[in-house]
């Protein structure tokens, strides 16, 4: 049988983000896969060196579109470490609320993305409808729906608007009531199970070989490795939550774990609001105005747990108004770059989008 070369992305509806994978297919079996990045052509890391510390606020969320706040968080955290600034207690809790709401957004995006490869478009419609409601909340808090630019170095940008706590909690109470419907629609669905179960495996040795973190790792090795637990940031050490684990990592396990993580995130949001003190929401990280903020010389690695795993920035400051160098450790880099080439071959052509989705890949993190 002759080999056929197919382009998966960047316009393919099953593709996540602006990348392309060239698939060499025999019959419907992928024989070879080659990632072709470079569609994003922003050059994030280089571009960050040309923006002021505060000016970067508009650029960094774009490193992951589905989950922008992790970028703001690692950036802000890193700068606070270099500048040796202690941020107000209230800001920590507001940050946790924002981070968990974004995690829910990202997981819903990813579960919704099961729709096109499996034909279950209802899942996507529902997810998008509820994502829209969460984005309304984000708009009320931050002023924008996708790129929030709300977690800033020194705290958060503004005080929470009046009455937002009730709105958020009311929404999630209603959302939790509907969650079994999601479960019934997606995870109890025989067609979904047929496609996802015992398919697209992620064995433990691959985790160690590539350096996969996040759900990919936790579903394969059964260990609760989560940055929120192992090196708690913000105030994750003060709240009570579980990290779901498993030892058999097929596409189904990885997807259903997202469902359980959403439940945990809602728990964290409730606790954060309960524990949130009153007070200031930010401090200045340097004297003067934002055009002239300088950080002391220094370097730091700052990491958070994103929806896809450990996400970090390595930030170097040479004492100027702009970063000397920022390197991004994209959570999806191991599986999305090396993993595609080594372990996508062997799946069937119609499972390629599922492979991409359930492995937890956000392309801009790779193409940065």
């Amino acid at each position, binding site marked *: 049988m002759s080999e056929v070369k197919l382009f998966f992305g960047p316009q393919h509806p099953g593709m996540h983000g602006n990348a392309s994978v060239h698939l060499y297919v025999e019959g419907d079996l992928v024989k070879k896969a080659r990632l072709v990045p470079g569609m994003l052509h922003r050059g994030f890391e280089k571009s960050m060196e040309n923006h002021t510390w505060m000016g970067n606020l508009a650029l960094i969320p774009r490193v992951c579109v589905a989950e922008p706040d992790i970028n703001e968080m690692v950036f802000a955290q890193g700068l606070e470490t270099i500048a040796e600034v202690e941020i107000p207690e209230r800001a920590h809790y507001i940050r946790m609320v924002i981070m968990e709401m974004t995690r829910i957004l990202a997981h819903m995006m990813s579960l919704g993305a099961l729709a096109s490869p499996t034909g279950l478009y209802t899942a996507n419609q529902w997810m998008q409808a509820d994502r829209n409601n969460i984005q309304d909340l984000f708009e009320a808090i931050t002023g924008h729906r996708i*790129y929030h630019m709300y977690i800033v170095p020194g705290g958060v940008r503004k005080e929470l608007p009046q009455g937002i706590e009730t709105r958020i909690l009311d929404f999630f109470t209603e959302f939790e009531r509907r969650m079994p419907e999601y479960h019934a629609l997606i995870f109890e669905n025989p067609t979904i199970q047929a496609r996802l179960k015992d398919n697209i495996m992620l064995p433990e040795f691959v985790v160690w070989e590539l350096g996969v973190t996040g759900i990919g790792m936790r579903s394969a090795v059964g260990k609760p490795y989560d940055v929120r637990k192992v090196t708690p940031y913000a105030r994750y050490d003060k709240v009570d939550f579980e990290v779901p684990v498993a030892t058999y990592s097929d596409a189904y396990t990885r997807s*259903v774990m997202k469902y359980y993580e959403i439940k945990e995130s809602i728990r964290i949001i409730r606790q954060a609001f309960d524990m949130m003190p009153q007070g200031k*929401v930010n401090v200045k990280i340097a004297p003067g105005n934002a*055009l002239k903020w300088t950080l002391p010389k220094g370097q730091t690695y700052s990491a958070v747990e994103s929806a896809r795993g450990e996400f970090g920035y390595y930030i170097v400051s040479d004492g100027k108004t702009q970063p000397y160098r920022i390197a991004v450790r994209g959570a999806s880099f191991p599986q999305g770059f090396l993993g595609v080439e080594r372990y996508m071959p062997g799946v069937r052509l119609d499972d390629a989008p599922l492979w991409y989705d359930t492995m937890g890949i956000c392309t801009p993190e790779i193409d940065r």
Partner: protein
Amino acid sequence: MDKKKNLFSPIKAWKYAFKKPVSFSMEDIIDRPRESENNARGFHINDHTKCIGCGACSEICPTEAIVMVKRADLEPKDGEHPERPTIDYGRCCFCALCVDICTTGSMKMSKAYVFNTTNPDTLYKMPEEIFAASGGTITGYEKTPESDLLDLVRAEMPSEASEKAKESFIELLKGYSMAQAKAEAARCIGCEICVKTCPANMHIPEYIDAVGQGDMAEGLALLYKTNPLPGVCGSICTHKCETVCAIGQRGEPIAIRWLKRYIVDNAPESMYEEVLMAPVSAPGKGRVAVVGGGAAGMSASYYLRTMGYAVDLYEAKPLMGGVARYGVPQYRMPEERLNKDVDLLKKIGVGFHVNTKVGKDITLDALHEQYDAVFLASGLPQSRSLKLENGDHPDVLYAMPFLAAARDYLRGQGEMPDVAAKVIVIGGGNVAFDVARTILRFQQEKYGHNQVSLVSLETKDILPADKEEIEEGEAEGLRYFCGFGPQGIELSEGKIAGLHTVKCLSVFDENRSFCPVFDKDQKDLIEGSQVYVAIGQMNDHAYFTPEHLDKAVLKGGKVQTDSWGQVQGMPWLFAGGDIVHGPDMIHGIADGHQAARGIDLYLQSLSQTS
């Protein structure tokens, strides 16, 4: 993980087929768009009457979407650029950093977010145009105190406590440390509104930047480009720059004067030599006489000397410095800092002729014969007198002689002026405060307590003196009688017993000209046995002979010149400083610089025609 399988589970989703859809119809998205949340970052709104065109928004914009555009319809005003921001919505990312850094708070964002066009050129607009086109009316994202990206509070200047201050003449302000100076420098947004307002057009944002980067040599060189007396200016400039500072719109203006002083105080001596001798060239182009060793005269001498002229500076008093030496008290203008600036002039080869009063010791015509050009900056050495009942009493004293005597005494060159235990000072300007606070210190030394009453026509909120003077004077125990007009002096057994005043209702008429209105029924007697008059200074034109006065034009006592300082009718004579523009240190320095350029042009043209 649970793997419950149920063929009927997904079918439950059908119940939503009978519920109201959560999505919007296509028509609604365009015609009835959903209203945004209150905080939404939509199209910009900029209040043009509030905006000062500082360009901070354009500076911070991470996508370079904001361009400052010159607006012909705006009248040029002090304290603003005739420019306003335009926004390219093809680039804008709606991050609202422009809103958060806006100096005036004029930039806001609306809730409007729908704008349809087929022509990409229409995306480049003045903010309110696209906002109006989108039909929006409601404000969305606005800056709050916590989201403000400006630093509105000054780095604190270490100063002497007022209890201790009134007992001595040591300088009150101690000067910034490096950390304080850098913190203060980081507050500047570099809008250059101050540069336009400064009479000398000093390179203010550039030298503030040099302070921020710790580059003292660069800072010093920038200072001397436009101002050869930075030490004097760093202490007592009238700081018009700070008055118009964009940060001052909502907060405390940048301490430009103190940052200048920081450079002068902290630049090492060797650096001074290196930086300042660099532009000086050997004399050989001509000879110029400068009359008056004050700010304008010294400034002209420096620049003429750097241009290659041999300069002789004539001063009537024994020391150079003018008002900085014989007017301003030592707690504001210490001797050492002034000496530093004066010594520099000597070092670059300006010939000093002290104790030489032009018009008495040497005539103006003699100078004309000896030199190629003459720069006249004799200043305002005489006090303006006040016509009062019993105003000719010997205990009615005037500001200028008193301040000069006070400085002489502190320099160890004279007796302590004889101040009474209860003193009245008439006037509301900086000079009146100088007199009052100097007397206060002498009283403290002589009697151990003080009683100085300051009488001014203006009420406290419109006093012409600096705010700091008023506050510091109050802390030191000055008694204010603001809004009172002096009527006459009460005598008792040949000695002054007090000053009769009446309530002053208004100082200026509708045309802003001086025309005080009094309420004669509200009388008061302020106690005191000495009266000091500090209501302004006058010039002394004794050096002008009748022939000169035929040619030169004097208007209201001020010498009329062209923009280069050249006196009309006498091309060899240039004038500047207080005798042309009224009392102002920095204006004098600017006049000196401008006249130096004028003299250079004049002499160059002479040599070319001959």
